[in-house]
């Protein structure tokens, strides 16, 4: 839609040279560098011979990574689109189980990507066909309104009754005869999905043969992540389309229910392990990729073995953390994000300026669910066993707390809160002394920030130093009076949340970001000819005579 107004403006005057291809390069150049850094750190972690509590520290590190992905993706839903979702963990669960199943069943310990890919293709085909049929059916029902306004209601009731009768009657037969169309339809979908998966295996094996040997491991992980995440995204779409018609508390309750339904459906699916969950899922670190670093201590050198590039578990997870943050950041601070935020601010006004509110809410919801699915897939491949009981409402609420504590509408706030709320309860198990290294660390972190912009970061420094001081006092007095801090762990944690909400209800960063959302736009200060014409004395003349 080219508009009359834009033609009047000479855009070349507003376009500095770095708005061309150079901007793309300068925007994306830090990413490979960051990936390299993460790879180095991951390699360092895996090759170092940590003496004490290695597993514990490493677990905190991984949990922090998952928490960041979940919090940032929920920030897009809760903070930017303003749709309060309490079922976020459900999407992580879908991602975890639907990545874990093919990884366990088809990937031959993360060496055989072809059959896994074919599993997801079969799933996609089935979902697409069933979805199309259902959409056509519902369109038909909807348009029957034109014949008579009561017809859709009648049709839905009839359909429901038919479904119930069909299922109930068919259950009395061992082999239901052909007149039970719905029963046959449902079992037909299941058997054709199985057929697709089975026959896809041969083709999948061929695909594996074609792929270079050293790429197979990474491909497996990527396919599992993208597949699991896409499943979560589709679930988000199915859940979001009806639920996002609701607002506020009603939506929160609906998403809560949807999360529970997802949990129950997965528990009731035998292929996904039932109530026990899935165990002995191949782990990233057991593959040729991760093994290189595990063996290093024995070999005394880094042996990348057959792998293309040896990415450790840590590198995979934190690369996805970076990708999640970058993608959601860019989405949130773009035209699309602006529209999403406009919907949050005022739906009626948003639709009055031509923003399709439902579309934008669903887009935010689906993208948030997608990234939660990525976290789930990595979780499955890191923990090696997943249990439906660990994906409960409680976890959803923890993520909501992170998002709220970080400040709604602030990605860096969500990251900070995710780190804080994962590390803090663990630190309280065995409270270390903050003196002197805690203060040194805070000092070092803030020196750079203060040099950059001391006005902005001085309050942060004071708050951090004060918190460390309180921590130290607490620890000292606990020692003095013989109180066990680890026993009071959850009390302290909860008290901090309460205090936080009392003292700073807008969250840590309160909708702002740690660093500027974007480069300040180039603007010329001098008024143009036109605005000078529009001085108050000229404005009275009104309509320009033509």
């Amino acid at each position, binding site marked *: 839609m080219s508009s009359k107004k834009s033609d009047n403006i000479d855009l070349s005057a507003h376009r500095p040279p770095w708005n061309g291809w150079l901007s793309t390069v300068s925007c994306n150049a830090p990413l490979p560098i960051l990936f390299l850094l993460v790879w180095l750190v991951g390699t360092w972690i895996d090759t170092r011979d940590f003496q004490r509590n290695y597993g514990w520290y490493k677990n905190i590190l991984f949990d922090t990574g998952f928490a960041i992905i979940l919090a940032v993706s929920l920030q897009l839903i809760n903070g930017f689109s303003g749709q309060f979702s309490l079922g976020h963990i459900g999407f992580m669960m879908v991602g975890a189980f639907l990545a874990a199943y093919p990884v366990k069943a088809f990937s031959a310990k993360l060496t055989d990507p072809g059959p896994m890919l074919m599993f997801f293709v079969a799933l996609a085909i089935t979902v697409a066909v069933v979805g199309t049929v259902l959409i056509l059916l519902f369109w038909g029902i909807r348009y029957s309104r034109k014949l008579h306004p009561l017809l859709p209601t009648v049709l839905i009731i009839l359909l429901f009754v038919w479904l119930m009768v069909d299922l109930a009657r068919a259950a009395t037969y061992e082999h239901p005869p052909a007149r039970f169309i719905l029963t046959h339809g449902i079992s037909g979908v299941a058997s054709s999905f199985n057929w697709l998966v089975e026959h896809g295996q041969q083709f999948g094996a061929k695909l594996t043969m074609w792929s270079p040997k050293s790429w197979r491991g990474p491909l497996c992980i990527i396919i599992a992540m993208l597949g699991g995440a896409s499943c979560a995204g589709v679930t988000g779409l199915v859940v979001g389309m009806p639920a996002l018609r609701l607002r506020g508390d009603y939506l929160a309750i609906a998403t809560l229910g949807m999360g529970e339904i997802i949990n129950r459906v997965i528990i009731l699916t035998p292929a996904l392990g039932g109530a026990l969950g899935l165990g002995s899922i191949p782990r990233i670190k057991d593959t040729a990729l991760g093994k290189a670093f595990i063996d290093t201590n024995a070999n005394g050198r880094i042996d990348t073995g057959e792998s293309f590039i040896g990415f450790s578990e840590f590198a995979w997870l934190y690369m996805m953390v970076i990708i999640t943050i970058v993608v959601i950041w860019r989405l949130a601070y773009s035209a699309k994000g602006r529209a999403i935020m406009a919907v949050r601010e005022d739906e009626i006004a948003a639709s009055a300026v031509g923003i399709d509110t439902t579309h934008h809410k669903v887009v935010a919801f689906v993208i948030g669910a997608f990234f939660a699915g990525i976290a789930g897939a990595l979780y499955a491949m890191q923990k090696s066993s997943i249990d439906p009981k660990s994906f409960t409402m409680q976890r959803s609420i923890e993520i909501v707390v992170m998002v709220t504590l970080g400040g709604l509408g602030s990605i860096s706030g969500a990251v900070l809160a995710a780190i804080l709320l994962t590390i803090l309860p663990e630190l309280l198990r065995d409270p270390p002394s903050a003196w002197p290294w805690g203060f040194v660390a805070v000092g070092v972190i803030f020196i750079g920030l203060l040099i950059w912009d001391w006005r902005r970061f001085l309050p942060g420094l004071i708050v951090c130093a004060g918190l460390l001081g309180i921590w130290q006092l607490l620890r000292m007095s606990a020692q003095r009076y013989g109180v066990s801090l680890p026993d009071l762990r959850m009390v302290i944690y909860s008290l901090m949340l309460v205090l936080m909400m009392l003292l700073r209800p807008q969250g840590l960063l309160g909708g702002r970001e740690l660093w500027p959302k974007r480069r300040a736009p180039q603007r010329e200060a001098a008024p143009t000819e036109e605005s000078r014409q529009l001085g108050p004395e000229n404005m009275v003349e009104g*309509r320009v005579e033509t």
Partner: protein
Amino acid sequence: MKTSHAAAGLEARCVSRNFGGLRAVTDFSLHVKCGDLVGLIGPNGAGKTTAFNVITGVYGPSAGTVCMNGRRIDGYNPVQINRCGIARTFQNIRLFQNLTVLDNVIVGFNQSAEHGLFGTIFRTAKFARERAASEARGMELLRTLRLDDKADYIAKNLPYGDQRRLEIARALATNPRILLLDEPAAGMNPQEKKELMDLIRFIRGKFDIGILVIEHDMKLVMSICEYLTVLDHGETIATGTPDEVQNDPKVIEAYLGEPA
């Protein structure tokens, strides 16, 4: 003024809207061409805002048709209606309060953004160009409405008069052919009202759009509108030029009550 066949501009014909037994608007007809300045007046509860809401798709009409450039648009949703070239402001200001002034305007350009999800995520050159262009357009529009020095303010921190103007700027950003203003002068002092009148005349001339104003302030309406429709209890009691309407006994009765 009236044309019977399909014509340019916004045309409502015999529009009615009932809420249950309440007939909020009955047989409401109106024609706004590009370049027209039409007023819609009436005492409180006369159905002016309902008529507005029917035109902008917030409610569907119970009867009658609404056409834009000869195309029927009744039954469209607000988004589709906006894309047909009808933009509106609200009686109680509805800005995107926590966005900046510039963002409030740029939101209106959204429908013309061409870079897709890929461009957004990889920040392609096209994305950068379009962002610079939309910012330039946004600043241009703000400059026209003399808000450019406040472009970085958070919208809710603007003074009242500026918020009104920003709402008009946001509506103009969607590139409308017809602009509907719902009580733009509500809560303004005489000086601000005078400025608003000038502004309305100015944008009508600058963008060559048709403007439909709902207003209580008779002085303001009488001085800027070329054509008036008076509603009372949902019914159109008078139409015509300000002079005709001013002397219409029905209008006087509606506003001042029956002669004693």
